[in-house]
């Protein structure tokens, strides 16, 4: 691991002023905020991340999980994943978020990992993690070893000729289906970013993963009030029963009236370069009867633009079946 200066932020303003001196935003930057450290320290040990300054933000007052006056929820940036998953309001109103978080990692890691850190979790692509291999995300312009290499676990949606890395987070998938808003404070003030606009596609710049600018500090995430009568499911398919990243996952939030779907929010994990909201699937479901044929049409729509690589063609069918089954489970319980 390269040496670095470790500082503790006194307040938000100091954290922002420190990080604003970086040339790029958080991921891969020379000045990094540290929360749980479960991604950052791991990657620093591999020399994939080499920050010169690490700013500890764990003592900032950003750990609250509280109800909002409108019935929604606000989640502090450094609220731990386990606190979020087990919070009574999350278990009651946002089951899909609780299920998604608990399906990822282990108790130890969830006790450490933070909300904002999970939003910024980096890919598990093995070429990104190996500094002796080319990777456009880690070293822009060096090439993508995954496209011609081992790509079984990598993305089939939102890829480019420069990067096919999967966003590994489960939490992000549920947040996408719940239409979370990410609140950021930066050198230019505060702004709110819908999660759909927060992560960016790799395109020609896979090193850039979010719209964050240098100095931007995620302060909290808000969830809109739960939709009355809505039912949700997070279904995750993986190689092992536990402690494994998704090959395909689906977060489904559905409202039914007399077996007719009046509202649907669909997001998928394990298949996209970002948490994959599928408005295409939502379009096929809305105002339709909750039948197998409709679910299948939605799944086909969600995967229509899939571009499988040499080893991950199976993900297209797997993801479709994952979504169909999740829809079945969600509508059965309604």
């Amino acid at each position, binding site marked *: 691991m390269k040496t670095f200066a470790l500082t503790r932020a006194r307040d938000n303003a100091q954290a922002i002023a420190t990080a604003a001196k970086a040339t790029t935003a958080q991921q891969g930057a020379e000045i990094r905020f540290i929360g749980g450290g479960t991604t950052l320290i791991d990657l620093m040990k591999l020399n994939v991340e080499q920050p010169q300054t690490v700013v500890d933000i764990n003592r900032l007052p950003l750990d609250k999980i509280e109800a909002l006056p409108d019935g929604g929820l606000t989640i502090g940036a450094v609220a731990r994943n386990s606190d979020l998953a*087990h919070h009574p309001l999350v278990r009651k109103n946002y089951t899909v978020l609780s299920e998604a978080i608990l399906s990822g990692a*282990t108790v*130890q890691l969830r*006790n450490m990992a933070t909300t904002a850190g999970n939003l910024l979790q980096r890919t598990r692509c093995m070429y990104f993690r190996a500094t002796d291999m080319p990777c456009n995300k880690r070293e822009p312009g060096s090439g993508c070893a995954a496209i011609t290499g081992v790509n079984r676990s990598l993305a089939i949606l939102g890829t480019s000729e420069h990067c096919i890395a999967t966003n590994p987070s489960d939490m992000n998938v549920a947040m996408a289906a719940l239409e979370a808003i990410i609140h950021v404070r930066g050198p230019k003030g505060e702004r709110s970013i819908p999660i759909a606009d927060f992560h960016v596609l790799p395109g020609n710049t896979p090193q850039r993963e979010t719209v964050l600018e240098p100095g931007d500090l995620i302060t909290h995430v808000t969830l809109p009030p739960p939709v009355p009568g809505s039912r949700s499911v997070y279904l995750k398919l993986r190689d092992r029963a*536990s402690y494994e990243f998704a090959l395909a996952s689906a977060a489904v939030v559905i409202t039914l009236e007399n077996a007719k779907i009046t509202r649907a929010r669909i997001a998928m994990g394990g298949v996209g370069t970002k948490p994959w909201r599928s408005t295409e699937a939502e379009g096929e479901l809305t105002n339709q009867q909750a039948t197998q044929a409709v679910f299948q049409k939605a799944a086909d729509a969600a995967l229509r633009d899939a571009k499988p690589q040499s080893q991950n063609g199976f993900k297209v069918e797997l993801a479709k079946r994952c979504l169909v089954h999740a829809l079945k489970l969600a509508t059965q319980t309604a």
Partner: protein
Amino acid sequence: MSNQDQTPETSPADTRREFAKSTRRTFISRLGMASLLATTGPAITTLAQRSGKMEQELSAAAKDAIPVTLRVNGKKHDLRIDPRTTLLDCLREHLHLTGSKKGCDHGQCGACTVHINGRRVNSCLCFAAMHEGEEITTIEGIGQPENLHPMQAAFVAHDAYQCGYCTSGQIMSAVALLKEPCGPEDAEVKEFMSGNICRCGAYPNIVAAVQQVRQNAKPREPG
């Protein structure tokens, strides 16, 4: 590099004081040094020079060292450490609490599991300097050979290990699990223990040990 409180050890008044004070670890390393000295006379100077150079390098690194006060197993330790020092390395190398083990060093195996403020974490993925003022508990703080924690006793009773390398991490997770919202079934225990890998495959006995302690404990409300 560190000034840690040493556990008081009784030393017999005979001439082999140094060896008598030894733990298994220091005994073996001293034994190695003794046999090296006995067999490689000409190498001694080189070795001394090299270790002198290492000292210099270490003190150069120590320039970046930062003062840190940690509270481990109820005892305060004033240290000077490199900011890169993980909590695991700090516990093992600076405080000589070698019960926490280094397996993968990447948060995948759970051998390094300790408690911070009563919650289990992977100490290999923590920078020690970030945990000032927090209550850190290691396997040494859970129980001692003469006074085992019920979970340690259950692991012995159920033969819940083979080589033993993962055991301290397994026990730290199992002790934490007692206060976590874990359901009653074996399947739920397995899920909650999935962050601790056992290459020997003692899993059925580990689950049996955990379940026995849970059954003996007062009924707890999940949740």
